[in-house]
């Protein structure tokens, strides 16, 4: 025994020493009081187990490592990204391996050792690799290992009075329009658009005012725009009706709208005229018994262009030819 090391304990079963021979076999020697300490058949004398301490020697064969078999393991060059996401998987398994079986979590599989796989849908995907060799097989599974996100795009936002709308304003209210842009790291050149579809036409914002010409309000590379107040005005001068405001960017910066590259948001503002007040304060009319006439539409009184207001059917030509008479 070329080498030994003391493992002595103070009481009970204990290893006293460990040693290794030139073939790599390992020997552990010690003492035990156990009556059922496992012994090799034919060993010195099992009848002496138990009671007073007995010595033992355990041998660990040097070739045990050959029975370990295979160990599955892998890496990926990226585990998160926007759709479509192409991932290069690399086998890191150990042992003698003769086959690989990959499951990518999206229903697709591969038997290559180092496959490349493209995810075409968003979500979390569980990846597993099963390796097989003469020593057996092993599977490594990683839950939600790959995260595929939406395609990164600019995200425009427009708010009316700090609301995504639709909102209702009366003609003594104030309208505040704020816009913001999350460029999501994209810095392409872009047309910036702010437009208003109103009861009296479609208009486009420029820093020189509103125009009915299709022109972007601004042209520049995309950048992160925090909440920016574009408009703050009383609506008393605006006709009642539905106003839809648009804010967005067109990553094809050519001064025109290319719809495939436009990313925009809208907000709807309903401006109500004062006419609602007429209904709100409309009177309650109470008549006395014996009343003969009630308020009515003027045109209801017209019969053959004249008003019939007497029982003898005398035609009072109040509206004959559309004119009254004195």
């Amino acid at each position: 025994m070329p080498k030994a090391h003391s493992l002595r304990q103070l009481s009970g079963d204990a290893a006293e020493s460990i040693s290794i021979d030139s073939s790599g076999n390992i020997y552990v020697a010690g003492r035990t009081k156990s009556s059922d300490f496992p012994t090799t058949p034919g060993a010195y004398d099992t009848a002496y187990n138990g009671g007073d301490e007995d010595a033992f020697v355990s041998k660990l064969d040097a070739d045990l490592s050959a029975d370990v078999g295979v160990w599955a393991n892998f890496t990926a060059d990226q585990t998160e990204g926007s759709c479509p996401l192409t991932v290069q998987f690399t086998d890191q398994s150990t042992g003698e391996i003769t086959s690989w079986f990959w499951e990518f979590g999206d229903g697709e599989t591969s038997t290559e050792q180092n496959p490349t796989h493209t995810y075409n849908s968003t979500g979390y995907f569980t990846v597993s690799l099963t390796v097989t060799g003469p020593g057996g097989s092993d599977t490594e599974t990683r839950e939600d290992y790959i995260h595929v996100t939406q395609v990164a795009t600019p995200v425009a936002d427009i708010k009316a009075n700090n609301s995504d709308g639709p909102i209702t304003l009366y003609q003594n209210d104030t309208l505040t329009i704020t816009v913001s842009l999350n460029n999501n790291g994209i810095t392409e050149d872009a047309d910036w658009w702010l437009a208003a579809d109103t009861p009296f036409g479609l208009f486009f914002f420029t820093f020189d005012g509103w125009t009915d010409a299709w022109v972007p309000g601004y042209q520049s590379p995309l950048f992160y725009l925090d909440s920016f107040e574009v408009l703050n005005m009383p609506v008393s001068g605006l006709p009642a009706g539905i106003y839809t405001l648009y804010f967005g960017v067109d990553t094809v910066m050519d001064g025109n709208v290319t719809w495939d590259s436009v990313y925009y948001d809208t907000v709807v503002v309903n401006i109500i005229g004062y006419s609602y007040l007429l209904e709100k304060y409309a009177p309650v009319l109470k008549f006395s018994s014996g009343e003969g006439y009630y308020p009515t539409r003027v045109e209801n009184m017209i019969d053959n262009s004249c008003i019939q207001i007497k029982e003898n059917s005398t035609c009072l030509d109040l509206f004959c030819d559309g004119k009254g008479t004195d």
Partner: protein
Amino acid sequence: MSLKSTIIENLDFAVYGRILKKDSRIYLQYWFFYIYNDWKRDIEGVNNHEGDWEMVVVELNQDQTPLRVGYSQHRKIIPEIPLIRGGEVRDWEDLVDSQSIEEGTHPVVYVARGSHASYPESGNWSSEFNGIEIGEVYHGDDLILRPSYYQLLDIEKGYHWSWIREDYRWGMHNDSPPSPVAQGDKWSDPGAWMDSLQ
């Protein structure tokens, strides 16, 4: 079939509304068209005529808080009979206190029988003039027209009501009332009209 029953069966009740902004006030005018004023049908009544235009107006401040209500009563004022007035003005809070506002925002109008003068509370009055006993009754004990029972027509929005805006006289006779537009401050400056009544 009587004329009255014919009218009630065939007509739909209507009130003509108009909004006027003036001097930091909002005026909500409610014009009522009656085809006939038959005040004389009552023993005490006078002044029959065709085409009767009456009106109440609600005054709001800029933040739409109601301030006053004006009630038109009689176009021709007879000084000898103080109760025959051009109209009456009441503060909104007074009307609330006297329960002349329904559901918080709707002024109650007691319509005098025959003359169609407007009053904020029910009642009656009588007086003698040149030996004739005249008066009005406005008990409100019969038909009630709440806003849901009549059409509220915005004068400013109806081109086919444009004749309301023309200066016609609404009847054969000279005592018929002129168009609302020709009724002076009552149409064009309701605030001044109400001030003149207070």
